[in-house]
């Protein structure tokens, strides 16, 4: 059962990586980052079932959720800046360092 959950977590993590690499919309790339954090949480909780007396994983999950919330707030603030300065939030427009 833990193996299934680990596989699901790996699958979601891969999808997060793909979202960050291949999507052109920065909003969706941020969602990919959140998906990766969520997959890491799932993996931690599933492994913690091997050690029922240890609560390190659960407390780590709490901290990771707090980090995820802070990161999404900051990411959306940066997104607002990008929208003002480039007139859009597609990565095809934000190419100042590209050429």
């Amino acid at each position, binding site marked *: 059962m*833990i193996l*299934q959950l680990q596989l699901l977590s790996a699958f*979601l993590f891969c999808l997060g990586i793909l979202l960050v*690499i291949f999507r052109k919309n920065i909003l969706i790339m941020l969602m990919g980052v959140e998906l990766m954090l969520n997959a890491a*949480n799932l993996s931690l909780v599933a492994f913690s079932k*091997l050690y029922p007396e240890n609560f390190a994983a659960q407390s780590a999950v709490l901290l990771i959720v707090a980090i995820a919330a802070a990161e999404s707030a900051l990411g959306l*603030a940066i997104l607002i800046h990008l929208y003002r300065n480039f007139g859009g939030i597609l990565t095809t427009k934000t190419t100042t360092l590209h050429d």
Partner: protein
Amino acid sequence: MDNLYQQLQLNPQYLITLHALVAAVLGVAMFYLRSPLFVALSFLGVLLTTAGIYLLLNETFIAAIQLIVYAGAIVVLFIFSIMLFNLQAKMQKQKPLMLLLSTLLGVVLFASFSLALLQLTTSQSITSNLTITATTAESIALYLFTHNYLLFEVISLVLLVATIAAVVLAKRYIALPASEEQEQAQEQKQEQEQGENQR
């Protein structure tokens, strides 16, 4: 204390597998759907099924945190910003080659992860069925405030800094009255542009 699935008289393993399958399908939908709103909604679905898995593993506190912070706050923030940015008009179709390449890369990544996991099963007993014990909020709090209290303080600082940074970043800067040099530079620039337009 009875487990949730004992009260429901259902086998938790099948339910967990069902939740995992739904989460995987919704994750794939996140990648292939074009509209950001649909992506956000499938992300919400992934988070809800993950919360369901936490509940079935008897991690009630983690499930509640997942629902409140992830599904309640973060996804709503994303949907709000989709509404603000009005992205529907500028959707682009992805090239078939890139789609194929991305699928290939995803398969390779997932295969390598799964190989590592399957190697782990030979040394650990992670395929065996476990008796799931309930984790209470009290035990998590005890661990958090005895072993991880320093991290807890650091996280509170990080949240404060992130709040301030978000406010500073999203603030609209008010233009200060331009000095004479800047005005002259702007005038010169405008003249140059006009000259180019005339040519």
